């Protein structure tokens, strides 16, 4: 099963067209293996990218070096996925007698 320990989802807030294209470049840097959750559209809209643990430092340095603001939308994706799975299993257990 693919797991995502330490993967973070960053919400990047482009300020201008120049930053938009820098973020677009980030999407193309396949070595970072970022996964676009919500892609580049226009300045007023955030870009969400999932960054594997091993690329986090590079990506954050890249963003900070370009003065691109970002927040951490999901601190550790695997933690949230584990919660989702537990909730599904608990709800399924609850539903079992009824069915």
């Amino acid at each position, binding site marked *: *099963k*693919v797991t*995502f320990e330490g993967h973070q*989802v960053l*919400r990047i807030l482009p300020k201008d067209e120049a930053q938009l294209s820098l973020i677009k470049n980030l999407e193309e840097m*396949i070595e970072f293996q970022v*996964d*676009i*959750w*919500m*892609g*580049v*559209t226009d300045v007023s809209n955030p870009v*969400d990218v*999932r960054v594997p643990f091993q690329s986090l430092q590079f990506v954050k340095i890249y963003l900070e070096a370009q003065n691109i603001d970002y927040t951490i*939308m*999901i601190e550790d*994706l695997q933690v*949230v*996925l584990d919660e*989702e799975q537990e*909730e*599904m299993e608990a*709800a*399924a257990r609850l*539903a079992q007698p*009824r*069915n």
Partner: protein
Amino acid sequence: TDSFDFSRYHTISEIYSFQDMLVAENPNLVSKIVIGSSYEGRPLNVLKFSTGGTNRPAIWIDTGIHSREWVTQASGTWFAKKIVTDYGRDPALTAILNKMDIFLEIVTNPDGFAYTHSSNRMWRKTRKPNPGSSCAGVDPNRNWDSGFGGPGASSNPCSETYRGPRAHSESEVKSIVDFVKSHGNFKAFISIHSYSQMLLYPFGYTKTPAKDQAELHNLAQRAITDLASLYGTRYRYGSIINTIYQASGGTIDWTYEQGIKYSYTFELRDTGRYGFILPANQIIPTAQETWLALMAIMNHTYNNPY
């Protein structure tokens, strides 16, 4: 299906059982059509809501074409129950179903969906291997024969927007293409994604505006106004290329070019910071608000035959 828990996420087998149960409970309104099979051999189930007649003008709704967008399959399941519950009670839906058919494909990418449960929750594409590459899967929303292979789709099998070796190469897409062509009387086609909160109309592959752009734009505005009336969820709307980005080989560009005027793509919520991992307690509110927008589009389609 009254005891089905719409407020939690379900596995593919639970959704498939729900479909069969719904058909069994509503034999005079709902039937199941298998329009093909996925690469791994799963049936592509389409629920047909019909009160009779032959080849009536029809409305198509699909959810789950990108498998990780779980709130869409969950909403699709809720829509199915809503239709059987409201037929005969809600005048507008009753009027529509007395003249038109509604086709609903809840798990449009079943291999991908099963894979999000079994192996990789973040899986988006289909699951067919790509010869010569270690990466599997095609983006089923870049595989349609409308501007296929143009900008906004990748030729790299490892990309999340990989277009595929040729248009309609994926059975999940080809099955819908064949069904829509053989039916020949679809008047609206709605494909549902998440999570950017948008209502989009053609085109994605070209800046050339759709012939019906003004009408589609006005209807989109009405639809998202209705949607926002329930929980205040704010949507953006417009053509794909002007609202998000250029994307070629997309579903509703193809359906619009087949002459299906009311072709729309939804991007459902996340209103917070969960993205694809939307908490299950937001499934029903998401489905409820989306239904208001769907009804706006279906009502307009019903009132403006062409």
